[in-house]
């Protein structure tokens, strides 16, 4: 029986034992993402706002998508996608885009999460891709169709591409700056929600070929609905961010080291 070099033995045994920990994705524990997905599914069953002209109601998951980016960072896209897919299987009535319905909440979490992680270039590209998917459709070249994505997508683009505004927003949320946190969370919710609803609008337009005669007259109504959603999301978002900090519970900002 040959005696091996002790040094070599240690390295060999180390090599066998060392494995890449897989309990986190993009800095967020998988357990937290699973909890978020479960919350998302439960929220899909709780109606928040009855909306005429839409399938059923706006459910609480819309609010969760808007705030997911600042809680989970870019991992919000994965958690939202998981929650979205399962909700789609459990409550298929709520997704008029069929099997692709989960993409809307994924994009909402992705854009807001990337922006909160200060990956503004990627967030900008994702937002521009969403807007591009709207404008590539020939229906979007008709009268007044350029106005449809304008209200909140314009705010999102300003936040993403203007450094002082972006930095102030992130700083205010990360430090929970009293007074300023409300407008900062409002802007973050605008980013998340606009990415979600523009993906939905774009998919609806590609699937059902709706013309400007539908989109333009109903625009004020949809702006009203989106405003209400963003305002509720802001109230929930501020309370959750403050609560997470006070209770020292895990969140994306822990992985930033700020």
């Amino acid at each position, binding site marked *: 029986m040959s005696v091996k070099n002790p040094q070599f033995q240690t390295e060999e045994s180390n090599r066998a034992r060392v494995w*890449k920990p*897989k*309990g986190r994705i993009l800095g967020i*524990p*998988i*357990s*937290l*993402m*699973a*909890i978020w*997905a*479960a*919350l*998302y*599914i*439960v929220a899909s*069953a*709780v*109606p*928040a*706002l009855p909306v*005429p*002209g839409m*399938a059923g109601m706006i459910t*609480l998951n819309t*609010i969760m998508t808007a705030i997911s980016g600042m809680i989970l960072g870019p991992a919000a896209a*994965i958690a939202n*996608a*998981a*929650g979205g*897919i*399962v909700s*789609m*299987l459990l*409550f*298929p*009535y709520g997704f*008029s*885009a*069929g*099997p692709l319905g989960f993409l809307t909440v994924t994009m909402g979490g992705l854009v807001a999460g990337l922006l909160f992680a200060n990956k503004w270039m990627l967030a900008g590209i994702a937002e521009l891709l969403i807007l591009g998917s709207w404008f590539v459709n020939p229906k979007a070249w*008709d*009268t007044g169709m350029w106005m449809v994505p304008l209200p909140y997508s314009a705010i999102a683009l300003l936040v993403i591409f203007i450094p002082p505004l972006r930095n102030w927003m992130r700083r205010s949320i990360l430090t929970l700056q009293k007074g300023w946190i409300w407008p900062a969370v409002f802007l973050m919710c605008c980013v998340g929600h606009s990415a979600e609803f523009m993906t939905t609008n774009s998919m609806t337009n590609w*699937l*059902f*070929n*709706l*013309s400007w*005669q*539908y989109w333009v007259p109903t625009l004020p109504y949809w702006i009203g609905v989106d405003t209400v959603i963003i305002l*509720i999301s802001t*109230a*929930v978002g501020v*309370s*959750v961010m403050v*609560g*997470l900090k006070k*209770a020292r*519970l*895990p969140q994306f900002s822990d992985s930033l080291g700020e």
Partner: protein
Amino acid sequence: MINLNQTAKNSPLYRLDGRSKLIGILAIFILAIVFSHPFYVLALLVIVMLVWWIARLPFQIIVDILKVFFVIALIILLVQVFFYPGKINLVRLSDPIKFIGFNGYLTLDGIGFGIAMVLRLFVIMVSAPLLVMTTPLPDLMVALVKLKVPYRFAFIMTTALSLLPSIQSRSNLIQQAQLCRGVTDFDSGKLWDRLRGTAGLLVPLILGSFRDSQTLDVAMSSRAFGAPGRRTFLIESHFSLLDDLVLGLSALLLIGGVTLRLLGLGIL
């Protein structure tokens, strides 16, 4: 919430592998997008109805779906009927109203396209329950993993599913606690009160659940989540002859549909 249907348990569709059903539903969805001619989409709907009948699912569910999507289907139909740029005029309704883009006529193409779009919505909506009501969710998750969906992503979905009952009961508990404090009923009451109640429900629900996630994280780490080695599954899925038949039919339909579309058929 839609659950596994009991009558569907004796159907051939129930015995199919989750992967075959997923691929079949995806094929139907792609074909629904590919075609925009009412006859072609109607043919697709007939196929879906036939599968529905084979699955022994109650047709009452379809009526429920129709009720939910009635308003949006009506909007889609009216927009297309009045504003689709058709060429074959049927009835003259008025003089052209240029500022709303109405040429004054009801066109055959407009009516056809409107019906096709409503049928498309209907096909998409009716095909999804076919999968959910005939497949237990754990089987569906195994099917996703077998279809090479990353394991960690499938794990998030299965864990979320298993956490559902506890989060739902927590949600009910919070709602009752808020009701005791005078917050309005979440399912009725004035809009503003319900909006106020939303924050009162979501905030404690999120914070309480996040606290639980720490326990779950410790449990996962102590069981060496992500350790190398071959993973085994409690539920194993296998293709049968019926699965091969379904997959073959789906492929045939898809290839046939795309070929027809490339030949310029099936569109208005």
